[in-house]
């Protein structure tokens, strides 16, 4: 067990440093890139918070859909092949739900402010 602060707390501290202390002293391109860097750390933090449980769920759904075991990447590659061949379609039980759940989790990590994501949450009944 690592000592405190946690990795998430460290990432938060670095993000705050960039936003509140470094950025105000920067101009032009450097200020822009500092903002981008802080946004990238937000992604890291959300992935650390949401990622592990979401990945376990995604892997379980992939195993059920494809009726086999494998790594996350192997199973996603096989899912791609079977969708391309038309063996799995939106009418296949579980596929639409799997793709929606996986997609919503990905954007929850990458960009939870995205308009399409917020609207999809409303449409799924999870909207705030």
């Amino acid at each position, binding site marked *: 067990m690592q000592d405190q602060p946690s990795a998430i707390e460290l990432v938060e501290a670095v993000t705050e440093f960039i936003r509140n202390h470094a950025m105000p002293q920067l101009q032009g391109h450097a200020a822009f*890139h500092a903002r*981008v*860097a802080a*946004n*990238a750390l937000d*992604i890291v933090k959300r992935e650390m918070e949401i990622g592990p449980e979401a990945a376990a769920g995604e892997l379980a759904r992939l195993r059920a859909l494809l009726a086999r075991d494998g790594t996350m*990447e192997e199973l*996603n*590659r096989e*899912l*791609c092949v079977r*969708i*391309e061949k*038309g063996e799995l*379609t*939106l009418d296949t039980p579980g596929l*639409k739900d799997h*793709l*929606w759940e*996986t*997609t*919503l989790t*990905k*954007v929850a*990590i*990458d*960009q939870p402010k*995205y*308009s*399409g*994501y917020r*609207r*999809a949450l409303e*449409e*799924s009944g999870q909207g705030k």
Partner: protein
Amino acid sequence: MGAEANPIAAPLAEVARKHIDGATGIAGLKRLSGGASQEIWSFDATTSDGAVPLILRRAPGGVRDTGRSGTAVALETEAELIRLAGAAGVPVPPVRHVLTEEDGIGQGFVMDRIPGETLARKILRDEEFAEARPKLARQCGEVIARLHKIDKATLPQLRVATGKDEVEQYFQTYKQLDYPHPVFELAFRWLRDNAPPDTAELTLVHGDFRNGNLMIGPDGLRAVLDWEIAHVGDPMADLSWICINPWRFGNIDMPVGGFGTREDLFEGYEAGGGDKVDPARVKFWEVLGTLKWGVMCMGMASAFLQGDRSVERATIGRRSSETEVDLMRLLAPLKGTE
């Protein structure tokens, strides 16, 4: 960099003296950002009657870049298309001069610098554009109709790409990037199953008609810029690309560039002489456009992993998932929307 230190300053001043009435030299030469495959320079020709605001679009370093995207037209072709579009009533910056070898600054052309704004966030939010916004979608429709009506016999040599061609082109790019995206596979499959018939009449297509390439003033649309990926294709492509969600900049209920409705866009298109809009073909192109942006995001991730260590590029790579949400909303809606 001062104008004196810039190696293109002296030859460009000579171009101005030869081709701009009354010009004695140039001032205010500066490189504008944007344009990975082109350099864009802003400058004024100085005359006794005042400054003439101009833009130079030039191949990087003056020479045609062999890494230039395979879909981009040559700068001379772009200049010719802008002239044809202007003659057809499309608002464009008049081309003043196409560079020749004797000008000594490589390939490119000089055109007027039209005042206005291209940044979507300002156009969609600033008070200055409040009166323009409700008019823009209709204006876009009218202007797109005019460019589609340009007689194909008068066009320079251009790439021809049908819907099916573009699906296969992006599928190849996606496969080369070699990272699994089940939602993109679903979209490619849907596009193959729903491609419009090849009998659809092909026209000149701008190819990148969207926020960022439209110069907007308080009075509305002033100029259509950036004709470098113009080609011959399905006219519905231009009516869809401006409607994909990334170009709405958060205004999700204003499908046309975040400022207008499809009804206004299509009305303008038909009033401007365009053919009757086919909603099924528009949807095909909206799915394809969304997917294209997603594949471009994957390309950013790939460039980052291959050594371009820009954090900006890396984070754009993480925007593929936004297009996956958009594709899922188009292809597998949770409610009966869109």
